[in-house]
């Protein structure tokens, strides 16, 4: 029985061990399609950090927004204040009708009439209207219900109902994007009229809808790396100061919300420190190394967190990176015959640094939300951008010499980046705004194609520029 089993196994093994069959073409088509979709990688930033970041962003934004809601603005948000039976001073003079001239009410009188203890209106009448339902006399009861009295007595009267406050409130409450509000119709006194209260035409209240912004910024760029063995790269790689700038076209959809798209240029990169240049090019032939190459025009490479910088060395020169053991293949020759790490002659070596630069054409899509609307506007901004690689080069700096040694291999051409920041807008002329925007940008994907180390650059910048609005 056992022999039969063994025989059976053997027959199956002989006949099927190397069994081959033509594979349907659709498999290859499926593989190509599958490879087109890049493999999902582990998210480098833990989710709790993302959540914490978003929570912080929302908290700061909300705090700024509500801190900015001064009592006056709250009042304006709640009521629309419009002049009632307003006549300008010249008109009053022309009419010659002294009775038509409003009496100058003392504050105490105004307070008295507006507290409405009697429930009846007097001079300096204060009437609340509710939408289109016509004037509604304010009674103690409905004031309490609507919390009008407290706001009015504390703020409007305390501020003497100054005309400019009323104007500001009127302007604020005239925003198109807000729901109709309750109105308070006030019979103005002379102070109000002489303070220059005027009704601002509707078209002058509308905001500028389009804008073109030119910005430039010094940036600090570095990278977030993850993956097996990635820690060692942080020992000798450092961030880089660079620059970024470009144009953005914006469109406002409401007083506070606007969308921007444009073209930006960003250069970023990092330094690879602690590089040694060996002028002596000494390879030691020992049993671990296959042989010493006859020709010294070898192409060597420097391993870094993005991938491999191909470095065509001059004859008799060699570029390498400290900090690796031989097993790490830091000095991996492009020539496959020499996979073992060469042993370097430590004489005549000198310190050097590699600067790796990447240039990107950035196509941003940003949303700006105005959280403070004053002379100095404050905006929260966020969005994503598509980054197209347009430049990739590395230089070797040794002593006074700087030489171009190529660039990193296996770098993605198309990348995506998240943007967030604050925007400060200061109007310097009617259509011209000075902008300052501290921004943080973070690559959403790894820019290298290495499966082992994922490299996501980020940059911090203080984008400064001017915005033309119309």
């Amino acid at each position, binding site marked *: 029985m056992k022999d039969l089993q063994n025989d059976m*196994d053997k027959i199956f*093994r002989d006949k099927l061990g190397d069994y081959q069959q033509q*594979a349907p073409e659709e*498999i290859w088509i499926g593989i190509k399609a599958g490879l087109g979709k890049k493999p999902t990688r582990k998210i480098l930033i833990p989710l709790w950090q993302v959540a914490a970041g978003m929570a912080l962003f929302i908290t700061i934004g909300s705090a700024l927004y509500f801190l900015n809601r001064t009592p006056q603005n709250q009042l304006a948000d709640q009521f629309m204040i419009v002049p009632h039976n307003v006549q300008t001073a010249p008109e009053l003079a022309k009419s010659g009708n002294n009775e038509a001239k409003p009496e100058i009410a003392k504050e105490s009188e105004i307070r008295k009439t507006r507290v409405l203890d009697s429930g009846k209106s007097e001079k300096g009448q204060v009437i609340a209207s509710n939408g289109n339902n016509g004037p509604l006399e304010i009674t103690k009861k409905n004031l309490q219900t609507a919390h009008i009295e407290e706001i009015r007595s504390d703020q409007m009267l305390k501020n003497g109902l100054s005309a400019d406050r009323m104007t500001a409130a009127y302007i604020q409450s005239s925003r198109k994007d807000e729901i109709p509000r309750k109105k308070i119709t006030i019979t103005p006194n002379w102070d109000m009229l002489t303070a220059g209260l005027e009704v601002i035409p509707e078209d002058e209240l509308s905001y500028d809808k389009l804008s073109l912004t030119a910005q430039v910024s010094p940036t600090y760029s570095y990278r977030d790396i993850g993956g097996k063995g990635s820690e060692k790269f942080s020992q000798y790689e450092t961030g880089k100061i660079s620059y970024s700038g470009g144009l953005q076209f914006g469109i406002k959809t409401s007083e506070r919300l606007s969308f921007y798209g444009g073209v930006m240029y960003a250069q970023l990169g990092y330094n690879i420190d602690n590089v040694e240049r060996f002028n002596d090019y000494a390879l030691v032939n020992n049993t671990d190394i296959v042989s010493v190459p006859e020709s010294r025009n070898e192409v060597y490479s420097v391993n870094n967190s993005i991938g491999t910088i191909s470095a065509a060395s001059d004859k008799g020169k060699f570029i390498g990176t400290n900090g690796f053991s031989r097993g790490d293949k830091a000095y991996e020759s492009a020539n496959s015959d020499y996979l073992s790490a060469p042993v370097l002659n430590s004489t005549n070596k000198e310190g050097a640094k590699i600067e790796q630069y990447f240039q990107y054409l950035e196509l941003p899509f940003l949303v700006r939300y105005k959280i403070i609307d004053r002379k100095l506007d404050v905006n929260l901004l966020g969005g994503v951008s598509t980054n197209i690689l347009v430049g990739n080069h590395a230089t070797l700096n040794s002593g006074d010499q700087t030489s171009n040694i190529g660039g990193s291999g296996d770098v993605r051409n198309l990348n995506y980046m998240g943007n967030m920041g604050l925007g400060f807008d200061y109007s310097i002329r009617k259509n011209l705004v000075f902008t300052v925007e501290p921004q943080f940008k973070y690559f959403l994907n790894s820019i290298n194609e290495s499966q082992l180390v994922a490299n996501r650059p980020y940059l911090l910048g203080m984008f400064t520029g001017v915005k033309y609005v119309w």
Partner: protein
Amino acid sequence: MADIPEKIIDGCKKGKGRYQEELYRMLAPKMYGLCLKYANDRDDAKDIMQDAFIKVFQKIEQYSTKGSFEGWVRRIMINTALEKYRSQVTIYSLDERMPVSDEGVNSTVIEDLSAEDLLNIIRELTPKYRMVFNLYAIEGYNHKEIGEMLGISEGTSKSNLSRARLILQEKVKELFCITRDAK
């Protein structure tokens, strides 16, 4: 086992499409034959092969030059098939009907069958028997290794192999009878 030129492997490591296709064309017939042994049907085999080759290209940087590249790919194919099997294992959790007769079949009868016949017979096994039989009889793994690969005990592996053989003998007999009657 003729192995793959290093130039092609390097090209695949760099993500070059031309080398990926070249590698695929070189290995496809063998690997498809392998997948057919582990799959329930041809569609299943196509799925396994597609998923496995995508893994090969995505993880090719992890391949060390120490071992045979084809052996490495073959292992990925098998692992992918086993993953698929594990995902389907609940579907096949019921024991299949066991053959009543323990009468053996002459090995010459099996020898007369073509590779395609044997492949069809193997594919008629439920996955848990098919996997163990393939891994043991064809790939040459021992029961300890099979147990680790499938997450079962050595004893279960032995038991499944024994049952697989019995079923295969029955299937061979059935096929032999059909063939003889047809003649």
